[in-house]
């Protein structure tokens, strides 16, 4: 493939970042917005071209005779050479998942760029302070995220991983005069940094044993029964296997080194993807502007963890213990987040927890994926859900942004009954809710159904568990929907400033995304994205997904979703006492859910009391008083010694000669005693 387009995809956002960041303040707001959006638009076109070329051109570089999709490294530049074999390269890898991610990222990013033109100014059309900076940061983020997904090696991924973390930091803290935003950004950065530590160590272990960072080397593993895996020689694959399998020191604390490496790498993913217990930053990250939440904290960056696991999936397959851990973490997180989402007041927080829960779905799906079952259905489902979720969650966030923009508050208590005032938002939000709830034929239905199928194929227990979570999802989303748009009539204080729908720049993305959410479920993912590139279906048509549904699972999940929606409707459609009753019936549960199971408090305790109070401060004290004190005490002691021997110099000449005499005799006699 020609390198031009890939280079543009990476370079343009970076250029826009530098351009807008350095020169932004010398240009008008509108110009900056237009430039930013246009830049992203070009990137979008390039990315689409690349992705479509990859998927549909039929080029033998990308797809072989048997219809298997191949990995292709477009370019790979040596950036930093650690050792002759460990080389950090910056490159561009296209394969099914990176192409898919290119599409997702550029789409959402473009939508958000467009949307922000309207969002980032108030009702009087006054631009937000730092508007240019905002666009610069968005471009930086897009650059980093694109770089992440096209990474050819794990270290490149780590580089961009850090960069997306930093741009997330900048964007969350966009309203930097607000202390809450500052602390939220800080929290996000530090928590993910902590997770990255695990990632880094994981990389170090992996690269030490494998002797390479390159994904193509790391993941080209032949698993029994499957012959065509990214066209890598079997010998090489055997090599890796034998390294990990036969190494004498390969176990550590009961787990194999590979398991440790993979779990540590997954830890990085947990941080970015807000898996419990490293999820605490994500709800707070909602302090950022809403388009940012839509882009970073719903659609793209937070799925980086999923992407990472998917990227290394063949490795994970070799060590299913790590996959089991992923399942457990994911399932717990999914359930936890869904519970919490049921009682939150802030609509962005509900969406944030919903995001956590949905990402956990993807994780679980990856965790349960096994080649034995439907050719690794879970992997495909996870990617599929990633795709659809990005669309409808971005939609939901953008809707929420529209609402917040209109109302000026994040709480649904200030909204209620907005359906008449903001009809477009209403409809698009409803589509989003239906999609996430998994109602046929919206996008979420298909992807979630496949996930549940994959779970079912793996273990009944997790299937039931995840179905419950799916029900909860439908419930809390419709709770939100009803509380925003129904519940009671909206009180309008000032007719001139009644809430209304938004300018076209904001509406257009909503509509586009709503349409995508309606139809994204029909994309035949099974033939595009599978873990080994092998197509799942013989032939492809618009209804492939529908045809290949496992209807028993689908029926159950549909029923669960519908029931949950009905309960939500019952409770929240009109103002009533039921919610209060529920709350009073289970006060402890409600309280714990409302306070997010006190995770933040626990973290505060650990960081402030333990780390700061019991580590940092004592160390600082130790340094000042013990270490420095010792150094100072040399000086003090010298001084003291100086004072204590001053009596020698008494000024009396008789003392002088006496000391002289004793000195000389001691000198002589000690020498004499020693030597004779």
């Amino acid at each position, binding site marked *: 493939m020609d390198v031009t387009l890939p280079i543009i995809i990476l370079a343009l956002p970076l250029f826009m970042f530098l351009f807008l960041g350095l020169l932004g303040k010398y240009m008008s707001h509108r110009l900056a917005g237009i430039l930013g959006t246009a830049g992203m638009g070009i990137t979008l076109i390039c990315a689409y071209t690349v992705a479509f070329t990859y998927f549909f051109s039929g080029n033998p570089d990308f797809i072989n005779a048997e219809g298997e999709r191949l990995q292709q490294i477009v370019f790979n530049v040596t950036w930093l050479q650690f050792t002759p074999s460990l080389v950090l390269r910056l490159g561009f890898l296209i394969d099914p998942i990176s192409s898919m991610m290119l599409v997702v990222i550029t789409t959402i990013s473009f939508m958000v760029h467009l949307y922000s033109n309207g969002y980032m100014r108030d009702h009087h059309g006054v631009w937000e302070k730092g508007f240019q900076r905002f666009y610069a940061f968005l471009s930086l983020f897009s650059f980093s995220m694109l770089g992440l997904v096209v990474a050819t090696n794990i270290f490149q991924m780590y580089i961009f991983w850090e960069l997306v973390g930093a741009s997330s930091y900048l964007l969350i803290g966009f309203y930097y005069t607000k202390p809450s935003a500052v602390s939220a950004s800080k929290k996000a950065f530090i928590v993910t940094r902590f997770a990255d530590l695990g990632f880094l160590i994981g990389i170090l272990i992996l690269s030490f044993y494998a002797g390479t960072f390159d994904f193509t080397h790391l993941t080209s593993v032949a698993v029994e029964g499957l012959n065509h895996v990214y066209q890598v020689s079997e010998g090489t694959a055997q090599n890796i296997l034998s390294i990990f399998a036969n190494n004498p020191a390969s176990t550590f604390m009961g787990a194999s080194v590979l398991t440790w490496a993979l779990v540590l790498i997954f830890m990085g993913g947990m941080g970015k993807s807000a898996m419990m217990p490293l999820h605490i930053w994500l709800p707070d990250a909602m302090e950022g502007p809403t388009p940012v939440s839509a882009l970073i904290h719903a659609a793209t960056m937070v799925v980086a963890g999923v992407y990472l696991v998917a990227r290394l999936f063949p490795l994970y397959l070799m060590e299913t213990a790590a996959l089991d851990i992923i399942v457990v973490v994911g399932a717990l997180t999914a359930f936890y987040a869904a519970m919490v989402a049921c009682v939150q007041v802030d609509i962005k927080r509900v969406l944030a927890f919903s995001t956590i829960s949905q990402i956990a779905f993807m994780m679980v799906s990856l965790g349960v994926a096994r080649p034995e079952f439907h050719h690794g259905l879970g992997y495909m489902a996870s990617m599929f859900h990633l795709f659809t979720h990005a669309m409808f969650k971005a939609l939901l966030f953008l809707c929420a942004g529209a609402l917040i923009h209109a109302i000026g508050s994040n709480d649904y208590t200030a909204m209620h009954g907005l359906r008449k005032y903001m009809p477009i938002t209403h409809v698009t939000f409803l589509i989003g809710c239906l999609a996430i709830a998994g109602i046929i034929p919206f996008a979420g239905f298909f992807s979630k159904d496949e996930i549940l199928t994959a779970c079912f194929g793996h273990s009944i227990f997790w299937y039931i568990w995840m179905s419950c979570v799916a029900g909860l999802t439908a419930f809390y989303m419709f709770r939100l929907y009803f509380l925003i748009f129904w519940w009671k009539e909206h009180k309008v204080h000032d007719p001139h400033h009644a809430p209304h729908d938004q300018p076209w720049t904001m509406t257009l993305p909503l509509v586009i995304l709503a349409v995508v959410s309606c139809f994204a479920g029909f994309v035949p993912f099974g033939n595009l994205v599978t873990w080994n590139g092998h197509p799942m279906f013989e032939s492809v048509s618009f209804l492939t997904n529908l045809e290949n549904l496992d209807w028993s699972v689908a029926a159950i999940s549909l029923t669960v979703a519908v029931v949950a929606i009905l309960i939500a409707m019952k409770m929240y459609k009109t103002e009533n006492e039921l919610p209060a009753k529920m709350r009073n019936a289970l006060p402890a549960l409600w309280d714990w859910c409302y306070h997010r199971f006190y995770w933040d408090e626990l973290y505060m305790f650990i960081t402030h009391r333990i780390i700061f109070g019991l580590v940092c401060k004592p160390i600082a004290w130790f340094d000042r008083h013990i270490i420095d004190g010792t150094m100072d005490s040399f000086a003090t002691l010298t001084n003291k010694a100086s004072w204590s021997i001053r009596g020698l110099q008494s000024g009396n000449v*008789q*003392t002088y000669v*006496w000391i002289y*005499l*004793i000195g000389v*005799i001691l000198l*002589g*006699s000690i020498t*004499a005693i020693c030597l004779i």
Partner: protein
Amino acid sequence: MESVGSIIMYVIIALAIVIFSILAVTTRKILRAATYLLFTLFATAAIYFQLDYEFLGAVQIAVYAGGIVVLFVFSILLTSHPGDNSEKLASKSKKMGLVGAAVMFIAAAWSLFSRCEMLMTSRPEMSNPDMQRVGEALMGTAHYQYLLPFEAVSVLLLACIIGGVVIARKR
């Protein structure tokens, strides 16, 4: 074997040295101290005589007893206040002095006795160094002859004279 006379002579000299030394450093009256010093110096001269160094004994009496002690007496007279001619010794400095002296004595005795056989040598025969020999040694440049020190000491004395003049001159 010594003659009895020389032994008696020795005993007297030794006793004089010991007693007058002690008295010289312990007497409270400074003028008496000078006197005792004179006696000690005489006793020393006597030792020189006994050991057959007549020239040296003569010099000892002439320079020390005749010169230095007189100098002392004059200076004592110059520097003493009337009626203030006795001094008391602080017990602390006495102790220090005793310790110092004792340590010195022990150390010196220890070192001397480390060469016991040397101490026990008896006096060999020696021809008296007559003036001829002394003079030649003083004016000679050969081995064991001391022209150079003789000249050097004259320079030293000149320096001390100049120094004395400087100090003594008023203002």
